[in-house]
């Protein structure tokens, strides 16, 4: 078998680049002068180093004497030499060069990226959150509460008596539901920033604001229903999950879009908030289910939870004019659904 082609010989010295003829015959690569067909170089092609194929970049062959020969991509000798090499990049090169793979790639890229962010990352975050030791979570609580208390929380004005009442029921619920894995710690704070609200830190510290206690002052069982929802966040390690997820998402976005710096910040900012919103909705649903189930096991009515949601919803509505309410609905589209779910659960209980 014989193959003929043309190349550029790159050598040292005066005539650094010259056009040459190349030939493959019986296991040998032969380089000849273009004019008089005098052999310039000859050796077995098996031991020559050939560059990976890439686009229409000429392929570069390192000869045994230290010189290089450069061959066009579609030159028969170049194609032959590349075929001799067994490399995964032949496949990559094929994909890159054939237009029929472009469209599937175009469709797959956004789909896979979406799956990565919405399925793979949450799954991984969940596993990571469950691996962490309780002592670590407790440590995070200690630091965070100190930090938050310093900036957005004030001393509570709730009476000792009311605090004790709520705390006793909190302990009773934990005992009845046999939840003793975490060092639970219920705290009361006055807070302008949070309004009527309750939130749970990853290690079992649960914060209730004065406004919330005052809002349901007549219905302590409603406060307990809200506490159950917060307990669920701790039991399912939602706090850690959210943190691990935001870390992973930030990492991924900056990893993939690191090259488009300005755009990346713009994009990752918006993407993160969108993702966080979706994410917290899933977690809220999970915590709601836990709370409804807990109420049932405590022989209490799921309606307590419906009342809690309703109360918070109305309180938001009171504080807002129409424009604000619209915004509230757009950020909490699931709130009505949550109230209805709790009501349905209550109906089931009475049957």
């Amino acid at each position, binding site marked *: 078998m014989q193959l003929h082609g043309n190349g*550029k010989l*790159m050598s*040292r*010295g*005066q*005539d*650094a*680049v010259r056009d040459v003829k190349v030939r493959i015959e019986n296991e040998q690569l032969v380089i000849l002068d273009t004019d008089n067909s005098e052999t310039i170089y000859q050796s077995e092609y098996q031991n020559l180093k050939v560059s*990976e194929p*890439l*686009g*229409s*970049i*000429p392929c570069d062959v390192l000869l045994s004497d230290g010189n*290089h020969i*450069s061959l066009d991509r579609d030159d028969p000798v170049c194609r032959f030499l590349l075929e001799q090499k067994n490399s995964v990049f032949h496949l*990559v090169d094929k*994909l*890159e*060069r*054939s*237009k029929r*793979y*472009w469209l599937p*790639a*175009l469709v*797959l*890229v956004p789909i*896979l*990226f979406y799956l*990565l962010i919405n399925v*793979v990352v949450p799954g991984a975050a969940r596993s990571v959150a469950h691996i962490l030791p309780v002592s*670590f979570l407790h*440590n*995070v609580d200690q*630091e*965070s509460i100190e*930090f938050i208390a310093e900036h957005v929380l004030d001393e509570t004005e709730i009476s000792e008596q009311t605090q004790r009442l709520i705390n006793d029921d909190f302990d009773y619920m934990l005992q009845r539901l046999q939840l003793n894995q975490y060092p639970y710690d219920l705290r009361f704070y006055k807070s302008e920033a949070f309004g009527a609200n309750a939130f749970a830190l990853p290690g079992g510290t649960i914060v209730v604001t004065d406004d919330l206690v005052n809002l349901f002052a007549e219905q302590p069982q409603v406060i307990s229903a809200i506490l159950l929802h917060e307990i669920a966040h701790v039991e399912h390690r939602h706090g850690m999950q959210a*943190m691990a997820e935001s*870390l992973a998402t930030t*990492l*991924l976005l*900056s*990893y*993939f879009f*690191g090259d*488009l*710096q*300005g*755009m990346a910040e713009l994009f990752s900012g918006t993407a993160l908030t969108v993702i966080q919103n979706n994410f917290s909705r899933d977690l809220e649903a999970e915590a709601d289910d836990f709370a409804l189930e807990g109420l049932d096991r405590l022989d209490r009515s799921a309606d307590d939870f419906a009342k809690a949601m309703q109360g918070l919803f109305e309180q938001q509505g009171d504080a807002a004019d129409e*424009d604000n309410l619209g*915004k509230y609905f757009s950020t909490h589209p699931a709130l009505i659904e949550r109230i209805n779910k709790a009501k349905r659960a209550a109906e089931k209980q009475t049957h």
Partner: protein
Amino acid sequence: MEHEHKDETESSSPALMSLSPVDFRFHGKSKEFFGIWIVNVLLSIITLGIYSAWAKVRTFRYLYGSTELDGHRFNYLAEPMQILKGRILAVILFAAYYWLSMQSPEFMFGFMAVMVFLTPFLICSSLRFKMRMTSYRNVRFDYTGTYWQTLLYCVVLPFASIFTLYLAMPWVLKNMDQYIVNNTKYGNKAFSTELSGEIYFVASFISGILFAIIFAVAMFVVSTVAPDASVSEQAMNIMTFATFAVYLLAFTIVRAFYKARVRNHIFESTFLQGVANFGSTFSFNGLCYIYLTNIIALICSFGLAYPWTKIRMVNYAVDNTGVMAVDNRSEVIDEIGEQTTAIGDEVANVFDVDVALG
């Protein structure tokens, strides 16, 4: 320390040698690059980012290998594993920082302090990596900046210029650029340059004025057209978006102006001792047109126009860069190659990790 190359410079001033223009061209094609880019992005996502190091090498190899100077192509020699190591390191550092700052907010301030001292190291490493992985005619480029000098030029001086109300910033930028160019080498030959503070001051001053004018005019137009922001939430959002868009527009135009001015000046006043002189003909209009159309194309195509914008940019840069080299350049470069291989290769590959932090 700073003037160790001075004797050589004086003995072989390029003005005394006979120079001729060298053919410089770029063969990259948007279509071809698009195929390479999209397939590599897909593989990077499938492998959860691991393949991205290989993708980077292929992308760079394509751009370098499509650039031809005097009949020889440039080469990108980085090994994907070096890049992957750097990326893994960056991910670990970032994750560690995140977790630790969650455990203790005070940690963040400590980390900031550490970052100040780490910055010169990162700048040096990434410049050195970039240069050493670039080769032309079997001779690698190199970067020889040291930690303390980089700390001075890239951290201390920019920080100090705050106390001059940024009035000294052009001078700081001039020194930074000069420091980087003078520490860049081709084989064992250093590039040398003497930049003019005046050009930097004029370019910066006009940039500032230009930014203020564009921003003011554009905001005036926006505020007459747009609804009153105090009326509703939606109007507020439109206004925020418009402000951001105007900022981007003004920044892009000013960047084109500054870049054209400063790049031309740097190239025209830089030479490689006894080998070559350089020239650059970037124009404000040309660069502005490319920048703005690139941004529009990226936004309208959700980033898919990236390969096209990249190829355009490199094409413009190559078309507007001039290289004048000595007539016996082949021998000169061979000689550089022979003198360099002995030193270069043993130092390379030990600490050569591509540090990629943002």
